[in-house]
């Protein structure tokens, strides 16, 4: 098997799995219980939250554990919009958001909120002048993903933060699912931050919303007094702890891992250049993601043929009714042909050069067979 779909999900780190198992055995008490075992589990959650905040330098935030990024995005957007509707109903976003942001914003639009979607320039970056012009007294929220999952576009957060710093009434949320663990990040200027464990070699079923403590939210899942007022339910303590462990190891030997991935990315580009009618759809993204189009073959066909050979990549589903057309690629390249033939290859520190070679050989073989 050759796995080149690390932006979709990652295999859990064995140290995360081990920590999860040990935690389940040693701290199985309900953290909401008042007896010693419950208190012990609760203390372990507090330790995990402390570690997450230390790693992300997020001292002024609460870690609200969720089932993943989708729930965190729901809580950030619905939670903030509903709790602050007396301040306004205007929200600004980017066109490159994950469907868990888009769907919530469509839901809010149906319920009387006004949503503006920013235009983008040729580099795929959101139009900052438009952002400046759109901000108004009833704007309550700006939600922009730092890294786009399909092309790896990194938005200019320094300038966005600078613009928003002049509008103190506007809260800034970012879905950082594709950024945390892949980039060195600075949370300064951010009020709400979404993250997910399974994108950083952690477990599925756990994520978090970092909430700056001054930000008020309406809970999406109401429940009894629990780990957070903003999220009901018995805290899944072993999963919560596993998020901290995943984050710890995601940033361990970080520079070394990034250098390895950068090298692979360059090698992949060199090898792809050997293939006729293969184009790179975005050249300046994060090194972990490379989106390419094999113009001679529909994306779903290439995806299927690779999958038959046990090579796993992604096609994208954005604003389309079939899974072969990438709205994001169309937006950046202005080409239907590229959008219909695009494949996302996502790399990891675990990826080997030999796997790239085998992937390239398979692509050549598939394209030859289909000529």
């Amino acid at each position, binding site marked *: 098997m050759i796995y080149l779909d690390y932006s979709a999900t990652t295999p859990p780190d064995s140290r995360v799995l081990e920590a999860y198992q040990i935690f389940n055995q040693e701290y199985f008490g309900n953290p909401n219980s008042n007896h010693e075992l419950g208190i012990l589990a609760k203390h372990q959650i507090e330790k995990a939250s402390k570690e997450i905040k230390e790693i992300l330098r997020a001292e002024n935030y609460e870690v609200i554990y969720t089932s993943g990024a989708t729930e965190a995005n729901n809580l950030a957007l619905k939670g903030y919009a509903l709790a602050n509707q007396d301040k306004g109903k205007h929200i600004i*976003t980017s*066109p*490159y*958001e994950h*469907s868990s942001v*888009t*769907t919530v*914003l*469509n*839901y809010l*639009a149906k319920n009387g909120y*006004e*949503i*503006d*979607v920013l235009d983008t320039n040729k580099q795929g970056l959101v139009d900052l002048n438009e952002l400046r012009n759109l901000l108004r007294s009833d704007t309550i929220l700006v939600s922009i993903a730092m890294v786009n999952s399909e092309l790896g576009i990194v938005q200019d957060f320094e300038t966005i933060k600078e613009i928003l710093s002049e509008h103190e009434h506007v809260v800034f949320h970012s879905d950082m699912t594709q950024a945390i663990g892949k980039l060195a990040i600075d949370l300064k200027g951010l009020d709400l931050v979404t993250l997910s464990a399974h994108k950083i070699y952690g477990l599925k079923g756990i994520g978090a919303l970092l909430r700056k403590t001054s930000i008020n939210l309406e809970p999406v899942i109401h429940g009894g007094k629990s780990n957070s007022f903003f999220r009901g339910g018995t805290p899944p303590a072993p999963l919560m702890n596993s998020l901290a462990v995943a984050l710890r190891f995601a940033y361990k030997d970080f520079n070394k891992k990034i250098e390895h991935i950068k090298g692979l990315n360059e090698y992949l580009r060199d090898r792809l250049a050997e293939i006729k009618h293969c184009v790179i759809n975005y050249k300046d993204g994060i090194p972990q993601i490379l989106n390419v189009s094999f113009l001679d073959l529909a994306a779903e066909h290439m995806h299927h043929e690779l999958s038959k050979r046990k090579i796993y990549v992604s096609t994208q589903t*954005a*604003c*389309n*009714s*079939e899974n*072969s*057309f990438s*709205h994001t690629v169309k937006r950046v390249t202005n080409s239907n042909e590229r959008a*219909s033939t695009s494949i996302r290859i996502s790399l990891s520190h675990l990826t080997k050069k030999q796997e790239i070679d085998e992937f390239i050989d398979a692509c050549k073989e598939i394209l030859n067979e289909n000529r």
Partner: protein
Amino acid sequence: MKIVRVTAMWCMSCLAMKKVWKQVFAEYSDIEIIDYDFDMDTQAIEQYNIGKILPELIVFKDNIEVKRIVGEKSKTNLFQILEELHETN
């Protein structure tokens, strides 16, 4: 004139177009809009053979399909399309 408008909750272009539609269709009191959700109204939209890209607007005149407006359009472009359709009356 009648427009069947097919959108989806996960569709960013549909979200982006909401504001444009509000502004443009406010100018045309003679256009009846019928909204369908791509995922919820599967039976109702089956007859329209919806393509790959959303949103899709199907324009009918006297119950005859005359045009499909697919994907994101600028306000100017949408006005232009609707004006042309009105001129051919």
